[in-house]
């Protein structure tokens, strides 16, 4: 059926939807700034992901920042249910950061917000039940999960930005790898496009960090190529978990329709 034409004298987002966008963007800005300092009052994100979790670097902090960003953008998209919601939220988030944050930092980082929002918008429209899309997320989780476990078993596990070799059992690698395999099985059984959207957005966030946030192009790229799948797995897991949380909240609030019922691969 041909969709009805939108009247020219109306608003795309209603005032209520604009309110939701502004409130969620403000919460995203607040949580991005305050949650890490509240969760880890005595340490930095780098110390937490490298020393406490034992993850490799650089870029493992994306697990915290990227997940928070994906969660709020996706929650806004699921609550408002209109294309452009995540992009509008990213613009409001940038505006809030510009007016309330540290401008020098924001100017460097604002572009990633727009790209992450665009990826979430685009992938959220993809029919994950069909074709190669249905295998993309489980395949990525499976490959990265197995690689991470293999890296740990073979004794190549490192931690920190300087790739310090892990002494003893690298529990974070085993945990991430097994969690990746479990998520691959779940995503194979229950295909939800928002999990794929946030996962890919998280991976892009990591890639963007490696390529553009150093002193030169690709200056922060992992020096050890074996750590690339491990870090991608961390980003993917952060995106998938944050998307699952946003999706669950939207379902609890009853704002989402029945278009994303779990579909079996066999079907």
């Amino acid at each position, binding site marked *: 059926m041909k*969709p*009805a*034409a*939108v*009247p*020219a*004298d*109306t*608003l*795309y*987002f209603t005032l209520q939807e*604009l309110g939701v966008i502004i409130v969620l963007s403000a919460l995203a800005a607040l949580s991005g700034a305050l949650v890490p300092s509240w969760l880890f009052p005595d340490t930095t994100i780098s110390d937490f992901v490298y020393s406490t979790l034992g993850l490799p670097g650089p870029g493992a902090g994306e697990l915290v920042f990227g997940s928070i960003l994906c969660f709020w953008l996706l929650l806004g998209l699921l609550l408002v*249910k*209109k*294309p452009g919601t995540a992009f*509008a939220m990213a*613009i*409001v988030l*940038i*505006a*809030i*950061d*510009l*007016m309330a944050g540290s*401008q*020098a930092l*924001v*100017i460097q980082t604002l572009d990633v917000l727009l790209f992450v929002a665009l990826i979430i918008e685009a992938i*959220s*429209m993809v029919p994950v039940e069909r074709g190669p899309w249905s295998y993309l997320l489980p395949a990525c989780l499976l490959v990265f999960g197995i690689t991470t476990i293999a890296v740990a078993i073979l004794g190549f596990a490192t931690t920190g930005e300087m790739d310090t070799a892990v002494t003893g059992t690298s529990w974070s690698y085993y945990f991430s790898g097994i969690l990746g395999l479990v998520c691959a099985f779940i995503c194979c059984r229950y295909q939800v496009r928002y999990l794929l959207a946030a996962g890919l957005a998280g991976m892009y966030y990591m890639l963007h960090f490696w390529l553009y946030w150093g002193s030169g192009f690709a200056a922060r790229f992992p020096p050890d190529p074996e750590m690339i799948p491990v870090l991608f797995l961390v980003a993917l897991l952060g995106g998938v978990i944050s998307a699952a949380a946003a999706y669950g909240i939207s379902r609890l609030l009853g704002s989402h*329709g029945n*278009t994303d019922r779990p579909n079996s691969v066999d079907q």
Partner: protein
Amino acid sequence: MCAPIVLPEAAIGLAAAHILGVGLIAGIVIFNSNGVRKGMSSLLGISDGIGLAFDHVMSVMSR
């Protein structure tokens, strides 16, 4: 005789950031009007294809 007012760099940056931030919010409010968007797309000559695709995606998402 007018004396030049020299602003410190930090103040200029702060002012520019606030102007940019307010401009971004104003941009969202302006482009939230369907009339403005349709006018812009017809001005750019992309009114039909993009508009129809956008309406279709919107109808799919709101199901």
